[in-house]
C-alpha cells in the first residue's frame, strides 16, 4: 500500500505563475483533505471533500485557490496566480471520515520566487 500519493514533491515558480498539485488518496477513503503548512506552524485545513462534494471550503482563499475532486478519487489543488506568501508545504490527507484517522501524504513544498 503506497498510502496517500502527492505530486510533485517540490515546485519552484515565479510569482504570478499558476501551479497545480495532485493527490491520490488511499483506496476506499471517501474523505479527502487539503492542508496548508507554513514554516513553524501546524497544518491548517484548506478544503475537505466527501466523495466529490466540497463540504468545507471556508478556509480556501477562493480568489486565487481552486480545487476539484472529479469522480470522488483523485484531487487537484490549483493556485492562480501564485504570490510570494503562498510558499509553504501543501499536504493532502484522506480518511474514512467522521473521526477516523487521517492519513497524510508526503506533501508538496512550494517555493514562490
Amino acid at each position, binding site marked *: 500500500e503506497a*498510502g*496517500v500519493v502527492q505530486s510533485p514533491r517540490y515546485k519552484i515558480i515565479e510569482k504570478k505563475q499558476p501551479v497545480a498539485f495532485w493527490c491520490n488518496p488511499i483506496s476506499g477513503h471517501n*474523505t479527502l*483533505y487539503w492542508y496548508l503548512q507554513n514554516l*513553524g*506552524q*501546524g*497544518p*491548517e*485545513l484548506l478544503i*475537505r471533500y466527501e466523495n466529490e462534494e466540497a463540504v*468545507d471550503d471556508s478556509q480556501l482563499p477562493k480568489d486565487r485557490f481552486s480545487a476539484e475532486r472529479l469522480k470522488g478519487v483523485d484531487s487537484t489543488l490549483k493556485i492562480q496566480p501564485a504570490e510570494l506568501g503562498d510558499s509553504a508545504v501543501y*499536504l493532502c490527507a484522506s*480518511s474514512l*471520515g*467522521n*473521526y477516523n*484517522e*487521517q*492519513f*497524510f*501524504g*508526503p*506533501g508538496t513544498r512550494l517555493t514562490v520566487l
Partner: protein
Amino acid sequence: AQRVTQPEKLLSVFKGAPVELKCNYSYSGSPELFWYVQYSRQRLQLLLRHISRESIKGFTADLNKGETSFHLKKPFAQEEDSAMYYCALIYNTDKLIFGTGTRLQVFP
C-alpha cells in the same frame, strides 16, 4: 473559538530522561484530541488519540478537562523519539485543528 496551544517549540532531553510535551486546548464542546508525529523525512502520522486510552511506543496522554490539557508523556526517552510532535483537536465531526508543534530532541 477552537484553539490548540503547544507552548514549547523545542524540547531537548538526554536518553533515558522523562519527557512531557505540553498541549492545552480551547473548545466549548466535548473534545477529542490526538497526537501526531513527524519523524525526519517521513510523513505526518497519528501517534495516539485520547479516546483509545492506549500507550504507543511508550507514550501516553491523559485528557484533563479541568485544566483543558492533553500532555504527552514518556518515562524514558529514546533517541528514536526525536521528531516533531503536533497536538490536534477534532470538532464538527471531522475538522482537525493542529497546534504549532514541538520539536523533541533526544541526545545520546
